C-alpha cells in the first residue's frame, strides 16, 4: 500500500508533529533519562590511492557527523577487503562509501530498483544494507511485471520516493565522466555521446569517421585486461572489446533504450512469450553464417547447463526456447520481466555453436566451466575481429568488412596506460586519439583542450551513483530518522567542489538524471545542514550529553564498534 502526500499536506503534518513534540512530548522526554551513548561509528572509505574522491568525501562526512556528537572513525580499506567485509560479513559493519558504476544496461532502471533494495536480495544479493520494506518490495515487483512504459515509469518514480523517505543510503553524487577525442582525426559529428556512458560506446566505435589518413582509433585503459571471452565477465576494458567482437540480439541505443541489433525484430506476443527473428545477413569472423541454432545455443548454454555461471543470471527468467523458423525462435518466460530486452536479449553474446559446442562437451562431468576454455581466434560475429591481444599491454581489433554495419575505422587499438599524466601526454602527441577514461586532475585536461583546439572534451553525467550505505540491520542505522539526520548533515555541494573538483552532480535518488525518462524530478534534494540534522535527532529523542550523542530514552547500546 503506497501513500502520497501533497506538499501542503506534508507541511501540515510536519508542523503538527513539531508542535506535538515541543509541547506534549518534550516534558515527557525530559522526565526520562537519555539512552546509552551511541557507540563509536566506523565509516569505511576507499583508500586515497584507489579512489581519491570517495576517500576525500568520506573524510568530510566523518567531520560533519562528529559535529552531531558522534564518535566517528573514518577507516580507509583496500577495495578487496572492503568488499569482503561489506558483502560477506553483512552484520559486521556500520556504514561505508560505495558506488554503483554506470553501464549501458543500467540505462534500464530495473537493476537499480529491484536488486539494490528488494528484501529478497538482502541475504546475499545487492541489497547488502539489509533494507526491508514490504511497501517497497511490492512496487519493485510491480515495475518488473508492468510492460506498459507509462505505468512502469510511475512505479519507478514511486520507488524513488519511498527510498528517499526511508533513506537506506545517503545518496551523494553522480560523477561526471570526462573524455576527449581528436577532432582532426575524427569527424566530430560521427562521435556519439551515449547518455550516462559518454563517448566510449558501441555507437562511436562503429560510427566514428576518420577525416584523414589516420584510420585507427587508439583508446586507453588504466587497467590491464583479464580475458577477452564471450562467456566470462571480467573487467571494464574487457567488456569494451567483448561487445565489439561478439554481437547481441539487442543493443542499448545512445538514448539508453534497447533497440534490435542482431535481431531483426523482437516482439512480446503476450506477457510471457517473446518472438525473435534474426537478421539473415550475418556471418562469423571465420566466414560461417550466423544461424538461429547459434543464437539458441548461446542462450541455452547458460540456461540448461552449469558451465557458464556468469551468464546464467541473464537467462534465469527463460523457461524454454523453441525454434520456429529458419531465422525465428520463440522464448517462453517463467515470469513477466519488463526489462527482459535489456537484461537478457541485450546481455547474452551470440557465439558460434561450431566452436563452443565441442568445448561444452569437453567439460561435461568435470568441475571446469567454459570460462577456462580459450578460443584463440575469438570467433564472433561482431563488427570487429580480434587481431591480437596482449592483455597487459595492448589489444588490436580490426574491421569485420562482412558485417552489415561495418565500422568506418580500420582498427581499434586499446592501450593499457596506468599513468594518468602519461595519458594526457599521449593525447597531446596523438599516441591516443580517443581518451576513453581518465582518472587524473580534470583541470589538466581542460587546459590541454584549451591549448590544443583539436582536442575536444566531452562530459556526461554518469548513470552510476556514489553513496554512503548505512547498515540498516545495525542500530542506530535501523532507525530511518537517524539515517535521515546523518544524510541531512552531509553538504553535497561541499563534496562536489572539494572531493569531485566540481565534476559531479548531486544525487537524490537511485535513478540517475542521465536516464531522464525514469528519473523522478518530484524527489527533491533534501535540505541539509548540521543544525537541521541536530534538530531531526532531537525531535526523535536523541540527545547530546557531555559532547556525546545518546540514544532516545530507554534505548540501550547492544553493539560494539566493528573491529
Amino acid at each position, binding site marked *: 500500500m503506497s501513500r502520497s502526500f501533497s506538499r501542503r499536506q506534508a507541511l501540515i503534518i510536519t508542523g503538527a508533529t513539531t508542535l506535538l513534540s515541543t509541547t506534549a512530548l518534550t516534558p515527557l522526554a525530559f522526565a526520562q533519562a537519555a539512552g546509552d551513548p551511541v557507540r563509536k561509528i566506523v565509516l569505511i572509505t576507499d583508500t586515497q590511492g584507489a579512489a581519491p574522491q570517495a576517500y576525500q568525501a568520506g573524510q568530510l562526512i566523518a567531520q560533519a557527523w562528529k559535529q552531531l556528537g558522534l564518535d566517528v572513525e573514518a577507516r580507509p580499506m583496500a577495495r578487496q577487503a572492503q568488499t569482503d567485509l561489506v558483502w560477506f560479513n553483512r552484520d559486521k559493519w556500520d556504514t561505508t562509501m560505495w558506488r554503483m558504476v554506470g553501464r549501458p544496461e543500467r540505462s534500464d532502471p530495473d537493476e537499480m530498483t529491484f536488486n539494490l533494495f528488494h528484501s529478497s536480495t538482502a541475504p546475499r544479493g545487492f541489497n547488502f544494507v539489509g533494507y526491508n520494506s514490504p511497501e517497497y518490495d511490492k512496487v519493485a515487483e510491480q515495475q518488473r511485471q508492468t510492460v506498459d512504459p507509462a505505468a512502469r515509469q510511475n512505479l519507478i518514480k514511486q520507488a524513488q520516493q519511498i527510498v528517499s523517505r526511508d533513506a537506506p543510503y545517503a545518496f551523494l553524487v553522480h560523477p561526471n565522466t570526462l573524455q576527449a577525442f581528436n577532432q582532426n582525426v575524427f569527424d566530430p559529428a560521427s562521435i556519439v555521446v551515449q547518455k550516462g556512458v559518454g563517448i566510449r560506446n558501441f555507437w562511436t566505435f562503429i560510427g566514428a569517421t576518420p577525416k584523414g589518413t589516420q584510420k585507427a582509433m*587508439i583508446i586507453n585503459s588504466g587497467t*590491464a585486461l583479464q580475458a577477452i571471452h564471450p562467456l566470462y565477465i571480467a573487467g571494464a576494458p574487457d567488456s569494451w572489446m567483448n561487445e565489439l567482437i561478439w554481437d547481441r540480439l539487442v543493443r542499448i541505443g545512445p538514448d539508453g533504450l534497447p533497440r534490435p541489433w542482431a535481431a531483426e525484430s523482437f516482439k512480446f506476443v503476450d506477457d510471457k512469450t517473446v518472438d525473435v527473428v534474426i537478421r539473415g545477413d550475418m556471418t562469423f569472423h571465420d566466414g560461417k553464417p550466423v544461424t538461429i541454432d547459434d543464437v539458441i545455443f548461446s542462450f541455452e548454454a547458460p540456461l540448461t547447463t552449469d558451465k557458464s555461471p556468469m551468464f546464467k543470471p541473464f537467462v534465469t527468467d527463460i523457461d524454454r526456447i523453441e525454434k520456429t523458423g529458419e531465422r525465428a525462435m520463440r522464448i517462453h518466460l517463467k515470469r513477466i520481466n519488463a526489462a527482459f530486452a535489456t537484461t537478457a536479449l541485450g546481455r547474452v553474446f551470440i557465439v558460434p555453436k561450431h566452436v563452443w559446442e565441442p568445448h561444452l562437451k569437453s567439460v561435461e562431468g568435470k568441475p571446469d566451466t567454459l570460462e577456462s576454455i580459450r578460443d584463440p581466434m575469438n570467433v564472433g560475429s561482431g563488427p570487429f575481429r580480434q587481431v591480437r591481444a596482449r592483455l597487459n599491454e595492448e589489444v588490436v581489433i580490426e574491421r569485420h568488412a562482412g558485417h552489415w554495419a561495418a565500422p568506418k575505422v580500420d582498427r581499434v587499438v586499446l592501450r*593499457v596506460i596506468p599513468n594518468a599524466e602519461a595519458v594526457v601526454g599521449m593525447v597531446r602527441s596523438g599516441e591516443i586519439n580517443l581518451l576513453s577514461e581518465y582518472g587524473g586532475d580534470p583541470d589538466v585536461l581542460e587546459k590541454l583542450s584549451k591549448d590544443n583546439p583539436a582536442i575536444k572534451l566531452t562530459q556526461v553525467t554518469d548513470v552510476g551513483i556514489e553513496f554512503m550505505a548505512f547498515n540498516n540491520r545495525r542500530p542506530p542505522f535501523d532507525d530511518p530518522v537517524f539515517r535521515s539526520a546523518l544524510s541531512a548533515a552531509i553538504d553535497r555541494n561541499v563534496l562536489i567542489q572539494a572531493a569531485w573538483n566540481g565534476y559531479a552532480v548531486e544525487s537524490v535518488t537511485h535513478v540517475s538524471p542521465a536516464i531522464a525518462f525514469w528519473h523522478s524530478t518530484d524527489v527533491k534534494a533534501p535540505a541539509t545542514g548540521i543544525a537541521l540534522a541536530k534538530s531531526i535527532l532531537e525531535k526523535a529523542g536523541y540527545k547530546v550529553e557531555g559532547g556525546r550523542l545518546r540514544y532516545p530514552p530507554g534505548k540501550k547500546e547492544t553493539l560494539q564498534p566493528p573491529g
Partner: protein
Amino acid sequence: MSFALRRLAHSLFVLWAVVTILFLMFRLMPGNPLAAYINEQLSEDDQRLIMAQFGLNRPLYEQYVIYLWNLVQGNLGMSFFRREPVWDVLKSALPNTLILTITGLVIAYIFGILTGAWLATKRGTLAEAVIVPAALATRAAPEFWIGMILLTIFAFTFGWFPSGGANSAGAAYTSEWDRILSRDYALHLVLPALTLALYLQGLPLLLMRSTMLEILHDEFITMAKIKGLSPWRITIHHAARNALLPVATAFALGLGATLGGNVVVETVFSWPGLGRLLVAAVSQSDYPLAQGAFFLISLVLIILNLIVDLVYGWLDPRVSHG
C-alpha cells in the same frame, strides 16, 4: 664439491620454505577471492561452483599437497581471474621485466663501478664534493618523480621518446624476438631503463668508492706503489678487482630484488612487466598468479645467490673452507 652440494641443499631448503610461506600467506590473509567476482545475481550454487573449480573448498592441507605436487611438475596452476595457466600469464610479462631490469642494472653498475673507482682516487676534490651528493640525491629521489621528470622533458616536451608502453600502438611483429629486437622496442625502453639506472646507480657507486678507499690503504697497494707501478694500473688491476667482490654480490641481489620491485617504473611508463601483474594479483587475491609471480622472483633470487656463493667460494677459498 661438498661445499657446492651443501649450498645446493641449502638453496632447495630455502625454496621449500619460500613456497610454503607463499602458500600460507595468501590463504591466511584477510579477503575472499570471490569478493572480486561479485555479480549481483551470482547465486550461492554458482559461488560454490567457482570455489570447487579452483579447489578452494578442500581442506588447507590438501590444497597444500596439491600445490606442492603441481609445483614439482612445473605446474603453477590456473589464474583465478585470467582463467588461463599462470605460466602463460607470467611468460608474457617476464621478458619485458628481465630486459628492463638487466638493462637498468647494467647501466647503473657500469656507471657506478667506474665512477666509484675514479672518485676513490679523488678524495677531497671538487668532483667528490659534487658527484657524491648528486649520486645520493638521485638514489634518494622517488622513482616516480625521476620518471615523471624524464617523461616531461624527453617525451612530452621534445618528443624524442614515446610516452609509454613497450611498442608503438598497433605495431605488428612476426615473432617475440622480432618485437624485442626492434628499434621501436629499444626506443620505448630508453626512459624506463634510464629511470631505473638513475635510481640504482647510488649503491654500486658508493659501495665501490668506500671499498676502494679501504683497499687503497692495504699493504699490497703500498707494495705495488713501492714496486713503481703506475697509479692507473694500481687502481684498475689491483684495487678495483678486489673491490668488485661486494659489488658483484650487490648486483646479484639487486637483480633479484629489482625483478619484482619495478612496479613504480612499470606504472609510470606503462611498461607491461611482472611488477604490475604482481600488484594486481595480490590486490585481487588471485592466489595462483601471485604465488607464481613471487615464486618466479624467489627462484631467480635463490639461483643468483647460489651462483654468487659458488663464485665467491672459487674467488676466495676462505669462504668455502670457513
